[in-house]
């Protein structure tokens, strides 16, 4: 097996018309230097904006910025095995699930392919239709199972509904997507760092705030001491803290240098190369409200092993 870090995979789920394809194109356009491989299984033409397409190589489209797009038909795992084999030319994999796919099941399939790791399950919902869809005689349970699987729910097309309807939806969603953070968008415009994870370079360069990230409260925390990394990761994923994403580096007494990643309630800790900068650092992103600096500071201090 080759010695490359596992490639993060983001699964984008949601029913037809929710805006998955728009989101994919938006991320390709604003990839922030990431070489993204998009895997789609919808039938028909590949759903990529034509101006992004540079060429075709067999059944793989080559796209601007070193990105690619391929269709895996009905055989997701075979498609992922192919992508894993070309991991050295890819930084991140995006799976655009079909309208009836259960994104949680797709996420489970990732463990069948060595060299891939789940980053997050993002489920797009159409602000106008989601509640009707969720009670549809045929599709209702499929829709609610998609929501149950989500780490992040993006409510799309919020400009098409009234403020009251929006408030009602914000109230309705947590009950149906209990493990997800919910964010709102129009035309699927969401900060790439929210969907794909925070760029490592960003962690130590807190001045970088692109125009997409402005809707979010972003704060960086530095600390000199070692921490219990698992405990810190779990604490940052606690709904009470209210973070959408967090990423950072820390020294753990047992594991040494680690990367901590949080998306909604999903969190993982993985080994990281030793850093020149001896202090730990975590970037946290919250949506729609100010970030609770004190709570996070207290948490970091509390994770210092006694």
């Amino acid at each position, binding site marked *: 097996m080759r010695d490359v870090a596992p490639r993060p995979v983001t699964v984008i789920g949601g029913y037809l018309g929710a805006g998955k394809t728009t989101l994919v194109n938006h991320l390709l356009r604003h990839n922030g230097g990431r070489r993204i491989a998009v895997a789609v299984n919808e039938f028909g033409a590949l759903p990529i904006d034509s101006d992004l397409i540079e060429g075709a190589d067999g059944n793989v489209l080559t796209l601007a910025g070193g990105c690619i797009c391929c269709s895996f038909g*009905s055989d997701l*795992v075979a498609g992922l095995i192919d992508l894993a084999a070309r991991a050295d030319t890819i930084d991140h994999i995006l799976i655009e699930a079909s309208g009836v796919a259960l994104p949680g099941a797709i996420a489970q*399939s990732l463990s069948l392919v060595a060299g891939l790791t789940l980053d997050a399950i993002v489920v797009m919902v159409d602000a106008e239709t989601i509640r009707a869809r969720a009670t549809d005689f*045929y599709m209702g349970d499929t829709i609610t199972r998609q929501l149950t699987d989500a780490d992040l729910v993006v409510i799309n097309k919020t400009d098409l509904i009234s403020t009251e309807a929006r408030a009602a939806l914000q109230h309705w969603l947590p009950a149906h997507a209990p493990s997800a953070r919910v964010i709102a968008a129009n035309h699927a415009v969401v900060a790439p760092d929210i969907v794909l994870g925070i760029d490592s370079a960003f962690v130590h360069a807190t001045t970088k705030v692109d125009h997409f990230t402005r809707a979010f409260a972003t704060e960086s925390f530095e600390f000199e001491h070692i921490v219990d990394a698992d405990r810190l990761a779990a604490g940052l994923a606690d709904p009470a803290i209210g973070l959408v994403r967090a990423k950072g580096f820390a020294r753990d007494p047992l594991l040494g240098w680690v990367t901590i990643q949080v998306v909604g309630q999903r969190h993982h800790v993985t080994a990281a190369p030793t850093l020149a900068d001896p202090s730990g650092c975590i970037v946290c992103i919250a949506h729609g409200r100010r970030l609770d600096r004190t709570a996070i500071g207290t948490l970091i201090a509390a994770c210092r092993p006694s």
Partner: protein
Amino acid sequence: MSITIYEAGKIITMNPSRPTATHVAVRDGRILGAGSLTELTGWGAHTLDRRFADKILMPGLVEGHSHVAEGVQWRFVYCGFHDRTDPDGRVWSGARSVDAVVQRLDEANQKLGTTSGPLTGWALDPIYFDNRRVTRHDLDRVSTERPIGIMHASGHIMNVNTKALEMAGMLRPGVNHPGVPLGDDGLPLGEMKGPDAMTPLGPHVGLDRGLLSADEPGLRAFARLCVRKGVTTAADLANLLPKPAVEMMERVGREPTFPVRVVSLRVLRGASPRETIEHALALKQHSNELMRFGIVKIVVDGSIQGFSARLRWPGYYNGAPPGLWYVTPEHLREALELALQAGVQVHTHTNGDEATELVLDTLEAALKKHPSNDHRFTLQHCQLANAAQFRRMKNLGMCVNLFPNHHFYWGDEHYRLTVGPERAERMNACATALATGVPLAIHSDAPVTPLGPLFTAWCAVNRQTASGRILGEHERIGVADALRTITLGAAYTLKLDGEVGSIEVGKRADFAVLEDDPTTIGGTHLKDVRIWGTVQGGRVFEAATI
């Protein structure tokens, strides 16, 4: 222009105006008439062929739902529980225990000697071993050097040995998938459940997905098997029909000795509904006498024993979630509307009753937009439909192709685990279909269960499970109905009833040649009727020499 008159012990015609005859006259591969020698002599100079004088002729049997891939499977080691005949006529005895399976693979492995490559088995069914899980350790007894894989009868599970896991990069901790049970050591046990879990292993054990759609030798083997089972027309229900495959089929179909008519359906997969309908329409032009194209197949849900069929309330008997959709209602609607507009026939795979209901609802709406008098859209499997759904099928002009073989192979499982007693007794409601007037076919779905319409007819007549339970006495049908269903009934669902399915003037000279009379042998012995071979388009094919 020469006329042959065949004399037979008895000819069962399926033509109600003269249900039996002693002679049938054939010219140019078609039937001049069935009747007495005196009647047929009026057609002019002829040769009297008496080779069937002690045989029974009936219309060539029509298998309305099989897969030509059955012909490919026999390259692998048969590991099924029940005895089964291969295309060469060899009867493989059932492997009745895990040890017997291992022993059989061991023999095959010895034969392979030092040649490299995988050892592949098929048709394993651990249901009959009290659901004892077969593990990589069992298969390691055969070889730790050679990758080994066995496909289960259902086609949904695969067992592999340690070497195969190693080659696929799966012999590692950290695999976290419901289809991959782990041992105490945290490593996969070698049972891979569901298409996703099987995919990484397939190429290493000779079970690549692409390979399982038929190639030329597979098609030829399938055709030989058809002759052994009295089949002269068979539907190949889900093919992507790429250009090279179509060209191969056209070529083989024109050979003077190819013995079966194959109706190959283009499955909706990897292309949009519009592209698929257009492809089917274009393929229609490539049809010849023996190779027929132009029908579309749509898979709506999964399988009952895999708990992926979409069930209506109250769902699965064991509480499993209500199954999976393989198509969105939007795509289904688009496909049905385009097909009605284009005059392309559609067969839909629905196992669960909710999937069936979706097709009924969708077709009802589509027919309001695009009325069609004779579309014959057919529900395939449709195992759990209730009486109300059969009434809707009738009203919408639909046909149904039910799957009574399930009762024999998995009926006990359905009763005990999947759908529970009441629905297990109602499954594949052949009697209700006939009473309601829904055009009915019955099928084997070979290779899922063995090809053999007379066996399928036996299943519909007796509804007996492997353990001997009669599952739904009320839904049993009579022998005459069953025989009509495996000839004219299946032909109707393929829009071929004008050409085949009965022995009467103008139709193709397609006969099943039998040693025993299925109308007098008794319903409980229908599966034991001995088959001599077939006549296909006036050409004689003897099973013993095929």
